[in-house]
């Protein structure tokens, strides 16, 4: 995966460099000169049903629905959009794939597309067109959606960055002028925050989005679920070191994090009960837009940082990836492709990025220049969430096994078991190894 990513990264970087060389002004929001326009002719009488994860920020759905309306006006294709919590999209998508009936397009999370690749419409032509026009897809997007390096199972939509959200005043009061950049300092910060009575906390329950910090914990110490050949190697000395570190970190968390699901840290942070957590930009967005003056005031004190670098020496970020899949059973494949194309074009995609307030980071390099990343410096850390994203099935190939292992919370449960002391790190790693081997056996 790494070689593949490096190659793609260089290709993409060259694309951006070429775009920049066209000239200031024109380069920023002009599609690349060599890109051809592509359209798909919707079938006569086509109607589309789209199932997507429900909003965490209101601006996302408002902008998305405005684009849907524009699409209907432009093509006459009626589109019905259903929203579900992201944990509920996965089972619905799985059932749809299995039964061959349901929404035409599904916006889902992580490597869902790799659970049922045969049930998805090949969108290679569309993906290549968009990639060429908008400076290339980030490597993670390709890893998720083009697992064999040839056929695109769907289109990346972006990722909700899981970064550090912190209260500047509290971090400063704990003796840190800037946010720690290493895991050692990160632990020191957590200890200092606890001593000051302003602890932090991160989810250790079965939280789809917010438990991804557990991936960072393992990767930052050199541990990984599988090696490049998909052999399960989670029970390793590196993992044990990570779990020991996690145990120390957890000892400084606010009580209750073992039960935390996705919304818990948002609520605790906005209530002023925690000073540091991991989250999308939704906490900041909620604070900025809150009708409560006290919460609004808090926004000025909120800042974001990327996760610290551990002994492994490189960034090891884990974010919630979003995909767009067209189900093969759709009666309207052309209309579906046209819908996705339309939504990914800059006239629609950029306003949607801005509407989301930075909640979703783009999968195409071109949108690095979106105003959402420069309009507020606090948004900037989220910009590269897809660019720096390491998929959950690291270091192996994504597929049924990686998707299953992630959905079964193997890594978060291992971390929770070790951190809470319910199992020793060795026992927790052995249990994770056994469970992961079950998925990777096939």
């Amino acid at each position, binding site marked *: 995966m790494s070689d593949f990513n490096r190659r793609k990264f260089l290709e993409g970087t060259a694309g951006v460099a070429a775009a920049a060389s066209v000239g200031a002004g024109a380069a920023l929001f002009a599609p690349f000169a060599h890109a051809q326009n592509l359209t798909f002719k919707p079938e006569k009488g086509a109607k589309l049903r789209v199932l997507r994860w429900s909003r965490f920020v209101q601006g996302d759905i408002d902008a998305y629905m405005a684009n849907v309306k524009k699409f209907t006006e432009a093509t006459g294709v009626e589109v019905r959009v259903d929203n579900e919590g992201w944990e509920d999209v996965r089972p619905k998508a799985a059932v749809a794939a299995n039964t061959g009936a349901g929404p035409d397009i599904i916006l889902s999370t992580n490597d869902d597309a790799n659970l049922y690749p045969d049930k998805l419409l090949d969108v290679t032509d569309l993906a290549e067109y968009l990639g060429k026009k908008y400076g290339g897809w980030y490597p993670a997007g390709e890893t998720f959606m083009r697992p064999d390096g040839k056929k695109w199972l769907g289109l990346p939509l972006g990722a909700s960055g899981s970064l550090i959200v912190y209260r500047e005043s509290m971090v400063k009061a704990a003796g840190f002028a800037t946010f720690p950049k290493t895991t050692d300092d990160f632990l020191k910060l957590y200890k200092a925050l606890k001593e000051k009575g302003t602890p932090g906390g991160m989810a250790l329950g079965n939280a789809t989005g917010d438990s991804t910090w557990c991936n960072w914990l393992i990767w930052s110490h050199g541990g990984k679920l599988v090696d490049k050949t998909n052999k399960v190697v989670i029970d390793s000395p590196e993992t044990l070191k990570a779990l020991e570190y996690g145990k120390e970190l957890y000892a400084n968390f*606010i009580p209750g994090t073992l039960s935390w699901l996705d919304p818990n840290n948002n609520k605790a942070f906005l209530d002023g009960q925690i000073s540091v957590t991991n989250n999308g930009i939704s906490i900041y967005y909620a604070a900025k837009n809150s009708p409560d003056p006290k919460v609004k005031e808090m926004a000025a004190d909120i800042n974001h940082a990327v996760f610290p670098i551990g002994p492994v020496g490189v960034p090891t970020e884990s974010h919630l990836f979003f995909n767009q899949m067209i189900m093969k059973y759709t009666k309207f494949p052309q209309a579906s492709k046209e819908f996705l194309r339309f939504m990914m074009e800059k006239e629609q995609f950029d306003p949607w990025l801005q509407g989301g307030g930075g909640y979703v980071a783009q999968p195409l390099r071109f949108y690095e220049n979106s105003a959402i990343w420069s309009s507020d410096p606090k948004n900037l850390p989220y910009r590269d969430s897809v660019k720096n994203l390491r998929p959950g099935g690291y270091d192996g190939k994504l597929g049924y096994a990686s998707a299953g*292992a992630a959905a079964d919370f193997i890594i978060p449960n291992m971390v929770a078991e070790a951190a809470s002391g319910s199992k020793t790190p060795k026992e927790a790693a052995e249990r994770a190894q056994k469970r992961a081997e079950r998925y990777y056996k096939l």
Partner: protein
Amino acid sequence: MTLLARFQNSRNALGFMFMLPAALLLLVFLTYPLGLGTWLGFTDAKVGRPGQWIGLENYAYLWGDAVTRLALFNTLLYTFVASVFKFILGLWLAILLNKNIRFKTFFRAVILLPYIVPTALSAIAFWWIYDSQFSIVSWALVKMGLIDHYIDFLGDPWNARISVIIANVWRGVPFVAITLLAGLQTISPSYYEASAIDGATPWQQFRHVTMPLLTPIIAVVMTFSVLFTFTDFQLIYVITRGGPLNATHLMATLSFQRAISGGALGEGAAIAIAMVPFLLACVMFSFFGLQRRAWQQGGSDK
């Protein structure tokens, strides 16, 4: 007599015809899914792809899987404790509501409220009640000076188990109470009058009049209560999603997590099918228990 006329006059043929639509429905919507689930349990089927026959491999794996064993333990504990409490509280409420108290109808209606509220909604309410940072229970106890820090309702395995059992009891008591109340109202007051004349105490009346006459209803209501509790999904899914540390995973939630979210349809089906013997035992216990009572068919106990 023509064939049609003979058919129309045949009790057996007509009975068969009338039964056919219901049998068809049962076949399509009950037998087929159960059969398919059983089949899947013997395969390595994944979401979106058919599986190969692997015999008992899923079951063999699950037998050695610590999480599945924990889920089975949780399910049995959850079902047993919740059912006992639902029975005791339900019977107590039914007896209270069967007395001539003021605003009897109002109270009978109120008692149904937990049952009327959609399960997901009541689960969300409990999720808030048990929140580690915002629990109203913890807040009240702290304000009263009874505790000095918030209770970790859902972050500690045993606390979490107890918490979800309480939520289940709250939700299930109305069903037991109202059904038993209906049973109590079928008992003729003359039994109580006669026993009172004979000098029976209230406890003796309860033991020798109420309980024997209520037993058939109790058997039915508790069978259903146990079945509902054993197969509970929504409360757990909303409140804990099986956490912390899988401490509240029931067989149903684990089956869902493995089969649908995780894509391991065969393994998930095997977990679900593994529930059937327990459920069947419960139904058979109740069924044969009732069958032995001849008075169910209009006779008297032998």
